[in-house]
């Protein structure tokens, strides 16, 4: 919880200036494409030292508890049951998706999401079966961090949060709002606190299981797993917030490497050079 508060405070401080500026002048996209010569310029990790500490702490936690729990869950339940559980969890999150679609001005997507919720909650028996997908209402994803990004809020400093994984100030703040939204919708369903905790635990275990092959692959192949996960997270989130033309314009050149800057004197400094 403390992380989240730090995130909120920092977000307010770090983001308000640029956001206000962007909000004041929406207008058309600038004519000249912004070319970011060095993709790692998009990596802003001023708290890298602390983040790396949390990363290794999480690694120990993961080996001792999180991964064994995920693999135990996999052994205990057959795939169709796990799929049903995942569907129920996604269905609980669906109102939040619809709300965020709306906040992003995506009315069609929002109504699709709302329709999915109604159909899957009833015909799909409390969300166990995703009956909406085969009838042309595929699942999509939206969260409040994404909404903030589409409103022009920059990601702010990168954060690694134990158990939750890679994040940044904006997405960390978004996660709290998503959390409250989930509590509210479960409250409407008269779900008591112990059950809410249970739902969160199952959600975490199932999410960890879904990422297992990716995480193991990164741990096995990356020379710096921390930097690799950070890079992948930031690129993935960024891709949700800009259109394909902007994305293409901002790619690094393959032929002109960024200017050499002084390497670190030692230890872990920032990765943003």
């Amino acid at each position, binding site marked *: 919880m403390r992380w989240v508060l730090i995130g909120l405070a920092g977000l307010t401080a770090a983001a308000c200036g640029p956001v206000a500026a962007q909000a004041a002048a929406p207008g058309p996209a600038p004519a000249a*494409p912004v070319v970011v010569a*060095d*993709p*790692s310029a998009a*990596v802003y990790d001023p708290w890298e030292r602390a983040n790396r500490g949390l990363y290794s702490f999480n690694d120990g936690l993961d080996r001792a508890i999180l991964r064994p729990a995920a693999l135990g869950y996999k052994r205990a339940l057959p795939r169709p049951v796990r799929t049903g559980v995942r569907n129920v969890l996604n269905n609980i999150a669906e109102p939040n998706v619809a709300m965020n679609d709306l906040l992003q001005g995506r009315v069609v997507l929002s109504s699709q999401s709302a329709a999915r919720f109604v159909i899957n909650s009833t015909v799909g028996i409390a969300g166990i079966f995703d009956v909406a*997908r085969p009838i042309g209402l*595929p*699942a999509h*994803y939206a969260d409040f961090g994404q909404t903030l990004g589409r409103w022009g809020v920059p990601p702010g400093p990168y954060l690694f949060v134990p158990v*939750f*994984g*890679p994040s940044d100030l904006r997405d960390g703040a978004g996660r709290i709002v998503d959390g409250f939204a989930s509590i509210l919708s479960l409250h409407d369903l008269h779900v008591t606190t112990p059950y809410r905790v249970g739902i969160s635990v199952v959600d975490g275990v199932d*999410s*960890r299981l*879904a*990422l297992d*092959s*990716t995480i193991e*692959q990164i741990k096995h*192949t*990356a*020379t*710096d797993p*921390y*930097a*690799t996960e*950070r*890079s*992948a*997270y930031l*690129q*993935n*989130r*960024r*891709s*949700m917030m800009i259109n*394909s*033309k902007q994305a*293409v*314009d901002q*790619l*690094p050149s*393959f*032929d002109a*490497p*960024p*200017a*050499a*800057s*002084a*390497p*670190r*004197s*030692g*230890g*872990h*400094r920032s*990765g943003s*050079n």
Partner: protein
Amino acid sequence: MRFLSQSLVIAALALAAGGVLAVAPTPFTAPAMAQSGARNAGAEQFVGIQAQRALTILSQHRGDVASEKRLFHAFIDQVADVPRITYFVLGKYSRSISPPQQREFASVFREYASNVYESRLNEYHGETLKVTGSVARSPTDVIVQTLVSGGKLDQPVAVSWRVIAEGGGWRVVDVQVDGVWLAITQQQDFVSTIDNAGGNVQVLIDQLKRQVAKDDAA
């Protein structure tokens, strides 16, 4: 936690296993009016043809691991611009690396990358790929958009291919899945490793050598 699905694997896989058959690259044709933002038919055709070849080969099963590996290396040389990628993944350190170190790095990076992709060859389950469009950064630098579907995928996955034209043919330099570019991620991984070694490229080279030795022993 939805980032990085299994699809990352499939993209790399498609690139990797793509052309176990060696083929002449598609002739490069840049229309005079091609400009930033426009589609590029030549690049789209190149990706479509190479992907189709990849999927055909992936669906066949061979027993001989050593010959698969040889064919795989030949394919990489054919379809991917290995020298350009090798230079790119060093980021700012590509400027300062010495020629002998450059050769050493190129050799070990090639082994390392091949091992990574080869380990994924058996993860293909009948997915198919369709070219959906392209966006040109310039007439010789194009992002081709594709949709991978079928197999074990619940929903189609968008995969983008960055292709660069030079010397009469297109070559793949990067692949994007779920918004994540493989070569860019690789660059940030390597540059961070070198940064943390105080700028010493040899530390990265030695680490990659250990990794390759371990993989080859396994």
